[in-house]
């Protein structure tokens, strides 16, 4: 029983990184921009966040620094793909590779650093409820922020005027342009918002999840977030579900290994990827549904006046 509670707690924690990054990428993609640079942005934000935490001693300033770094990189990417109409996939890949190299370079002097003692968070009262307390209410505040963000994003995309405009820009930038909306600026804002959330995910890894800086420490989470966004058919709630599923199966397979289950560990290591893809493909298997949700102009450049 206690083990189950701890497994749930670890799942929520592990899913949060992916949730932030994938929700950020969802905002990008709803505006029609694919940012394959997520991994690079997360790495740069991870080192920015860690360095800030080392120098200021404040985790919250570190998160802000990570978000700032992410937004800045995303803005550079946005300028390339939105104003210069460069290929989104090539530019995103370049950003990813640049981020990996740049973060390693900047991070050299931080590899031997450590952060001050980590604070344990818990919600007073609720944290002491048996089972439910340890499972749900002893988490870092950002874990709850991620859930709130998914809810807010659902409301934003489907209930708010600004959300409609954002989706219109992703569906048919020509129409949005004809109606007088500044398509390029809206796309840039979306890309920066996405970058900031990827940045928050990166800073969460290096400041909360594994409080250290090691070159390449994001270890592919940016790519998983990209895949999650697609497999979740660009719906915030499904993105959140996918993130927890991935985190949960990751923790579960380690748990099974620790229990000495006789399955090759190599197979268990692959399990989170398999399980997440299978489940999300199953719930999103309706082709019409995918078409209905996929932003129609995803990945296509928009040049006003052509």
């Amino acid at each position: 029983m206690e083990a189950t509670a701890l497994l749930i707690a670890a799942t929520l924690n592990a899913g949060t990184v992916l949730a932030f990054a994938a929700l950020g990428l969802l905002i990008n993609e709803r505006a029609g921009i694919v940012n394959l640079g997520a991994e690079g942005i997360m790495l740069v934000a991870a080192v920015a966040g860690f360095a800030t935490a080392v120098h200021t001693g404040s985790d919250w300033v570190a998160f802000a620094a990570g978000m700032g770094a992410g937004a800045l990189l995303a803005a550079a990417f946005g300028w390339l793909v939105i104003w210069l109409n460069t290929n989104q996939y090539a530019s995103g890949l370049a950003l990813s590779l640049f981020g990996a190299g740049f973060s390693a370079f900047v991070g050299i002097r931080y590899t031997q650093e450590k952060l001050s003692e980590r604070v344990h968070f818990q919600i007073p009262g609720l944290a002491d409820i048996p089972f439910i307390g340890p499972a749900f209410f002893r988490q870092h505040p950002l874990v709850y922020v991620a859930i709130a963000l998914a809810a807010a994003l659902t409301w934003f995309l489907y209930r708010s005027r600004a959300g409609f405009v954002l989706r219109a820009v992703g569906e048919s930038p020509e129409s949005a342009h004809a109606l007088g909306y500044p398509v390029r600026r809206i796309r840039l804002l979306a890309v920066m918002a996405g970058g900031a959330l990827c940045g928050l995910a990166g800073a969460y890894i290096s400041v909360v999840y594994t409080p250290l800086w090691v070159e390449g420490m994001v270890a592919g989470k940016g790519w998983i977030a990209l895949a999650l966004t697609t497999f979740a058919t660009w719906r915030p709630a499904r993105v959140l579900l996918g993130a927890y599923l991935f985190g949960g199966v990751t923790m579960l397979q380690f748990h099974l290994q620790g229990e000495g289950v006789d399955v090759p560990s190599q197979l268990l290591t692959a399990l989170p990827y398999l399980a997440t893809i299978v489940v999300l493909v199953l719930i999103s298997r309706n082709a019409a549904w995918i078409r209905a949700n996929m932003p129609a102009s995803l990945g296509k450049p928009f040049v006003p006046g052509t």
Partner: protein
Amino acid sequence: MIDSKRSMFRLAGWSVLAAAAALAGCSKKEDTTSTAAAPASAPAASAAASAPAAKEPLKVAFAYIGSVGDGGWNFAHDNARKAMEKELGGKVVTSFVEKVAEGPDAERVFRDMVGQGNKLVFGTTFGHGDYMLKVAADSKDVKFEHATGYKTADNLRVYDSRTYEGAYMAGVLAGGMTKSNTLGVVGSVPIPEVIRNINSFTLGAQSVNPKIKTKVVWVNSWGDPPKETDAAQSLINAGADVLFQNTDTSAVLQTAEKAGKYAVGWDSDMSAYGPKAHLGSSVINWTPYYVKAVNDVLNNTWSTGKTWWGVKEGAIDMVSISDKVPAELKAKIDTVKSGLKDGSFVIWKGPIATNDGKEKLKKDEVANDEFLGGINFYVKGVEGKVPGGDKK
């Protein structure tokens, strides 16, 4: 039409730029510590001087699998490189390449090192071996040294440290400090070296506390901090209160620190990363071997073979033992150390049985290096089965 053509050109231009950025981003950092010492007028000099210049320092190159800043395996190798260079003064010039993956790209790196005039080349991870073997066959005048490998050639020899001696001492600490009698190991990749360490750790723990059991979780990677964190957390969730690792970063120790449990540092002194959780660090000191290897080449006494150094030769040690460790446990570590030094104590001595009851070493039978090199079973006390190991 013209407009779209122009935008195509512009796109092409930016793609080239992006590709260039990509290349710049992924190119490895190469560092030659004393390029100034190398003669700049190489072409003229080499044309004139077919006779070897006597005073020229020996060029030595190192390939690392990760970055030197990992605070673990690669950090230990690089510290030894620096210490060796310092000890040998002007007789040697070293350089290194980081992040040489265990794949075909490694061959390019080793050829490059030969091309740059290095006469002694170190590959410091198991997966470098096959590529070194290929390059060594084509470069007979260069000597190659492969860490943790087993295949040799006329100009390629292998060396390793008896990391399992450090693992045994880590086990003594863990066995003495555990309250739940459950120990956890974050394993990297299931190869004999790592399985031997897990077993030695368990044997060490049993020497002070026969009731312990060891849980093992594999991450199938040498350095992936979030995954190491997840693995460590799941071990703690399963009741382990002292953690041990065979991975390269300090993530496991930091997870123990956060959860209020204990852990033992690995490869390098990790005490700074988790002052409360840290019980001690099992460290590798490659310096004595690197000094020996370079001297062998300088004195023309280099010959192929296998070297496996441990506590006795100063290659393995348990350092920075925490104040929380009681004096009698510290004394026990000292006994093990001195026993290993003078040969009066042997870790792998029978009776040793697998965890499903098969006898591997009879009473008082001592394992030879060949036995140690092929361990693919868990000893009694370790839970579960070796991935891909003995099925019978």
